[in-house]
């Protein structure tokens, strides 16, 4: 209570300069279960990193270690190079937005936003002035005296964001910030969120199970599965150059089919029909994989009715109209099922069709 506001936060660079937030080989176990297994990444000032994974992948636990709510069993968390692993959340000075926002139901909007300043001993006039400014920043000017219960989901999310930003955080952490919004609101909030996070200029880490959100907002994505970090990279890298079958299977849609790696290209043989494909390799991969797979995405294949000579033959098992495109699910030989997107489609279910790869290049991953 009596400590000077500045002295309360520990670690990090001095003089208000922001530093990078990093987790280094952090591990967290709950009993016999390893929730997070030696995960590392670094987020630079002003950078937006999305932690993506299915539920139970350890993404929230990782976020909570970065925030200080969990202490890793091994590994460190650093800010601007200083070890903050054991600094409790109340002295980290991070801004956090919780999945269900965690707004205090017994306080009006402006008291919620001003709470962090109140905790820092800022006087009432100053903190309310700042809180109102922060509310204006998220497009909620004049909403200060409203009750939390009267806000819509989108408004609650903005209040949570304003509350996290008003303390001039040294890092921003967001747990599924968009998952409680309806689809339309979600799309506009994506853009707003990205703009706001960039403006603050501190490392921002957000957790999401939705890769579309991650693609739309993040500078880089860290993909987690069963507590292990599979790949960190830009959305483009993860989409076009996944480093493993797991990443290829998780990011985007597509069929993963065995291929023979020829160094420059790769050969895919389905039902006795072999096709030579140009490929992209993961960053830093060897010249040639002993065992390899190619990722066939729906927009890299074409389909025609009847039997083409050099095409893979198959049968339409499902047709889905999606507005600008039509998506066909096609059963090929050798137990391979692919999806093909076309702009126009006259094929029906049970029709025999032939499928050919377009120009590529196709992502190649090791077996």
């Amino acid at each position, binding site marked *: 209570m009596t400590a000077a506001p500045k002295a309360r936060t520990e670690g990090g660079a001095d003089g208000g300069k922001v530093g990078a937030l990093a987790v280094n080989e952090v591990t967290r176990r709950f009993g016999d279960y390893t929730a997070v297994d030696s995960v590392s990444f670094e987020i630079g000032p002003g950078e937006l990193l999305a932690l993506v994974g299915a539920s139970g992948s350890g993404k929230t636990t990782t976020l909570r270690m970065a925030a200080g709510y969990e202490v890793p069993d091994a590994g460190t968390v650093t800010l601007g190079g200083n070890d903050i692993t054991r600094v409790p959340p*109340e002295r980290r000075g991070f801004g956090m937005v919780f999945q269900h926002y965690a707004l*205090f*139901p017994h306080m009006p909007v402006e008291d919620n936003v001003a709470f962090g300043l109140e905790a820092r001993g800022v006087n009432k006039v100053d903190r309310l002035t700042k809180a109102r400014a922060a509310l204006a920043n998220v497009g909620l000017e004049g909403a200060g005296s409203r009750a939390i219960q009267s806000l819509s989901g989108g408004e609650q999310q903005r209040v949570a964001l304003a509350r996290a930003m008003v*303390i001039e955080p040294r890092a921003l952490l967001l747990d599924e910030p968009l998952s409680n919004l309806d689809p339309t609101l979600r799309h506009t909030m994506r853009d707003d969120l990205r703009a706001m996070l960039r403006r603050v200029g501190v490392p921002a880490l957000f957790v999401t199970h939705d890769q579309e959100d991650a693609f739309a907002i993040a500078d880089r994505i860290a993909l987690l599965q069963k507590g292990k970090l599979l790949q960190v990279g830009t959305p483009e890298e993860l989409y076009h150059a996944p480093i493993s079958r797991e990443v290829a299977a998780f990011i985007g849609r597509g069929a993963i089919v065995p291929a023979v790696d020829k160094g420059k290209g790769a050969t895919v043989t389905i039902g006795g029909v072999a096709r030579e494909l140009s490929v992209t390799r993961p960053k830093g991969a060897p010249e040639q994989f002993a065992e390899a797979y190619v990722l066939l995405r729906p927009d890299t294949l074409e389909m025609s009715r009847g039997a083409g000579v050099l095409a893979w033959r198959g049968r339409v098992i499902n047709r889905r109209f999606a507005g600008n495109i039509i998506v066909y699910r096609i059963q090929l030989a050798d137990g391979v099922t692919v999806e093909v997107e076309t702009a126009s489609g006259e094929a029906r279910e049970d029709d025999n069709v032939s499928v050919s790869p377009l120009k590529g290049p196709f992502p190649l991953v090791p077996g």
Partner: protein
Amino acid sequence: MRSSLRAQSWIIAFPVIALLLWSVVYPNAAVIAGSFENGLGHWREFAASPADREALQTSIVISVASVFASLAIGIPLAFLLGRFEFPGRRLLRAVATLPAALPPLVGVIAFLFLYGESGVVTRAVQHTLGMAHAPWQLKGVGAIVFVHAYTMYVYVFLFVSAGLERFDATLDEAASGLGASTWQRLRRVTLPLLMPAVAGSALLVFMNALGSFSAPYVFGGGLRVLSTQILASKTNGAMGLAYVETTVLALSAVAGLALFRWLDRKRKYTLASKGGRSRRTIRSRRIQILTSVASAIIVIGLVLPHLMVVLVSFARDGVWTTQVLPPEYTLENYRRLFSESELWRPITNSVSMALIATAANLVVCFLAAYLIVFRRFRGRGLLELLVALPWAIPATAIALGLAATFNRNDLLTARILLVGTFWILPVAYFIRDIPLVASAVESSLRQMDASLEDAARGLGASWLLTMRRVILPAARPGLVAGGLLAAVTAVGEFVASVVLYTHSNRPISMEILAQLRALAFGTSAAYSVLLIFLVLLMTLAARSFEERVA
């Protein structure tokens, strides 16, 4: 269809509402009317009597002090057990609600045996310190508040524990992430959000303490409170004054209720139940030892009254005088209870009266709850009010109302003679337990999907079949829990009994008091043990019934 359903609602509702108006509203209205029977004469008498002014003041002082004492014990205990892990936590959790299992008068007697002038603890301290007199006296406001705190903190503990369990742990995390210290979080987030639980339990303690009779009656010394004053006036034949005192007592209760509602008026939020947080293990070895020692002391303090009653029940009557512990032990007390018909009588009385009252509660409250939850009709609001009303009226007031109303047969004014008969006590128990059973059944029925009734009837089931196969099974958990609570309170009931009993229908509680007055401590303790045993038996019966059916 709609109108026939509404007509049917009224056919069921009419007798229920009529019964409640007759048994709950009418007697209390009669008391209020009686207080004005000679204009403002009785009220002037009340205002002029220093004893009555003192009684009112003492009642309120005791109630408010009981609230604060219960909060002071209940809140820290709920936090300790809800938020921390330490050696001995499970044991403490297991005995923390034990005082509530003690029938009110038995708790008072246990305290008398322990801390009274010739109590075990008192004597032990006296002997150890070599004092000539008892180091304290178990008398007056302090003694009453002491007993109240012991038995009533359980409400606070249960309410606050439930609140803590439903407390959204991320709110606490959000506050700490924003830089709030432990103390700031407690003051600005946790406690404000627990206020509904704190206020609810405080109200419960206030109402109980205000209507409490046994502690003031036994420990009061010369102290006057409203509830004992009412009985004194009635015994002296000053019925007019008793009516005024009863009205004042009931008004105080209603005023307390209104005050709490007003204090709680601004709250618009409810606690979201997103799972509590895990308990924190106490790391510091020093604090761990301190906590365990403290919890061991609390456990002993909580169990001691029960143990004491059991011990004294084996003491030979009349030989325990100046020793710390009773010098001679015997099974004689129990043998006499079971073999002498005069001594056995109160037990059969209590059991049969409790069962009759509970059966009536189950029928009436089931119908009322069904109507309140599933039917829309004029008079539903009235029914809800009638069902909750006995809760706001202290038991002494209910009893005096019955005494004033059902004292003669008079068809014109809808009076029948119950006073002096066996039936007056079951009726009193029935009225006291209406809110308890009705709210238990209501909450069971509210969990049922309302469209189930429509679905059953859509499948061609008659109203009776729907009742039997759909509604009753849904209400069962509430009926069992509410019925158990009603039976348990009725079998040990004291406050209304002391106003209304006769020698032939005297319940166990009155016999305990009579034996105590005759200084037959062993016998009165044996009755107390038997009462605890009956409560245990009913609980087990209800549980095995639930297990067999569910």
